């Protein structure tokens, strides 16, 4: 150990402690819920909280036998996949247009997309339900997939807009000179170059879709099995859940763990997507 300025040393210790406390605060509720999902009721509601206990899979059995979880997961996966794909199909070309074209259409559309962030979603859902009835979209998952665009499209468009802005226009011109169409320039040149951002946008869209709650509560699941998160909410608000937290924690774990596992798999993209890593349009 060299002799060091004690004040610097204290600053370092405080820094470490601060990060450690933050990590503990972040992780504890998640780990605690996960641990509790393997506990018998008698080991959950205790003072002090029990770290050592006899593990059991009973809670998972209860949740699965209760019947709405597995069909709910299936619905959730279908709607999430559909909404994510739809977001990319709509958002990628639109983001390309916004990045490449000036003028009233671009400014107007960009403004409308961004303004969605300022309106409480709940306001839009009843009129949307009425619109879906007349469009005959209430009888399938398609309605939900379309409604989810309210949550996913702004993020997909923002991430890809920034990405396409970074790609030099000269490449587009080269394609046009070679006899290509604007669409080939988009599909064959710009989209591959923006691949990392497309990845980030996909992750965000899937994340926001999987986590939607108020939209399916109002719009419904189109006659299919209610989404897993709706089943969770109904269960979490019921008497059984409050009497025994075990099944509740099992259900929550099943909804949380795929996201956390996914986060570790795609960590770089996720951090980039949230951090707005694609440098912004320098105006």
């Amino acid at each position, binding site marked *: 150990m060299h002799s060091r300025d004690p004040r610097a040393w204290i600053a370092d210790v405080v820094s470490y402690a*601060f990060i450690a406390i*933050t*990590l503990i605060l*972040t*992780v504890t509720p*998640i780990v605690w*819920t996960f641990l509790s999902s393997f506990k018998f009721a008698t080991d959950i509601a*205790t003072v*002090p*909280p029990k770290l050592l206990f006899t593990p059991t899979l009973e809670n998972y059995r209860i949740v699965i036998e209760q019947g709405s979880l597995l069909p709910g997961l299936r619905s959730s996966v279908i709607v999430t996949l559909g909404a994510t794909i739809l977001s990319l*199909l709509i958002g990628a070309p*639109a983001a*390309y*247009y916004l990045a*490449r074209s*000036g*003028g009233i259409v671009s400014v107007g559309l960009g403004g*409308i*997309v961004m303004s*969605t*962030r*300022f*309106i*409480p*979603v709940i*306001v*839009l859902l*009843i*009129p*949307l339900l009425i*619109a879906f009835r007349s*469009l005959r979209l209430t009888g399938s998952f398609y309605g939900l997939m*379309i409604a989810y*665009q309210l949550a996913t*499209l702004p993020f997909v468009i*923002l991430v890809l807009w*920034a990405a396409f802005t970074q790609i030099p226009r000269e490449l587009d011109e080269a394609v046009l000179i070679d006899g290509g169409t*604007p669409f080939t320039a988009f599909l064959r040149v710009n989209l591959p170059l923006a691949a990392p951002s497309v990845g980030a946008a996909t992750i965000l869209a899937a994340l926001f879709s*999987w*986590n939607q*709650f*108020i939209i399916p509560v109002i719009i419904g699941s189109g006659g299919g099995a209610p989404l897993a*998160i709706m089943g*969770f*909410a109904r269960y*979490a*608000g019921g008497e059984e*859940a409050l009497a025994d937290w075990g099944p*509740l924690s099992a259900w929550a774990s099943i*909804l949380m763990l795929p*996201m*956390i596992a996914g*986060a570790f798999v795609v960590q770089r993209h*996720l*951090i980039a997507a949230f*951090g*707005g890593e694609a440098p*912004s*349009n320098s*105006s």
Partner: protein
Amino acid sequence: MSKQKQPLYFVAPLVVVLAIVYVYPVYFAIRVSFFKWLFTRPDLIGFNGLENYARALTDKTLLDSLITTTVYTLASILIVVVWGFLIAYVLNRRRRGRELIRGKPIILTVLTCSAIIAPAVIGGVFRVFIWDPAYGLANYVLSLAGLSPLGWLVDTNTALMAVVLTEAWLRVPLAVLILDAGIRRVPPEPFEAAKIEGASALDEVRFILVPLIKPQLFTVVLFQLTFAFRQFDLVFMLTGGGPANATNLVSIYIYKMFSQHTNLGYASAMAVVVTLVLVVLGLIILALSGRPEERLVET
């Protein structure tokens, strides 16, 4: 370089979807806000001018709800910005040319865990495992510190604090990611100059770092403003707006109006008022941040 024209088919799908999920509902909500509109009594539907707005502006519960939501939003913005900045700052501290805290990527990944779980699930879980007065971890931690337990969500005095803390838990990591991306891009030269001038660490933060990452700080504020002001899922699952309306956020109040009272006209008028408040708050923040159009793109 001038922007070239692109064919409109690129945006055609966006226009169609926006028309269905956004423009039409907004139009419908604004129109219906001038009507008496009861789901249960279609025969009573009729134009009633500004009556819904007159009612909204004198609705004591709506006013309370707007105040609660503003407190919720401002408190969570404060925690998220301060805590998020401190973590991002510490993560980027350097000692003898290397980062003081090793393993930043893994730390950031762990932090994202709370940002990616559905707020509705967090609400359902925190209600019992953290905030339960008898067996929750919050009171256990208080007891370790020798403090007396609190009622948290079931006590009108502490419920709002508990939901704000949960909101902050959910969003601080997001702020860390955004601010870290900003701090990492700050060039070292101004700090070296400051060292030579003999500036303290605090001066460096105040006069060099904060001004340089102002765009990211405003991004976080705007992010948190739009998340918190529109929050529904989390608080609906934590308290359902209770106890005694202590956590009755505007989204929850509008939801109750929709689901219990079935007067779509009045609920829509409230929604319009709430949206206008949020837009004004947002515009103020955008104006303060300078270069508003750029901030809008980044968030």
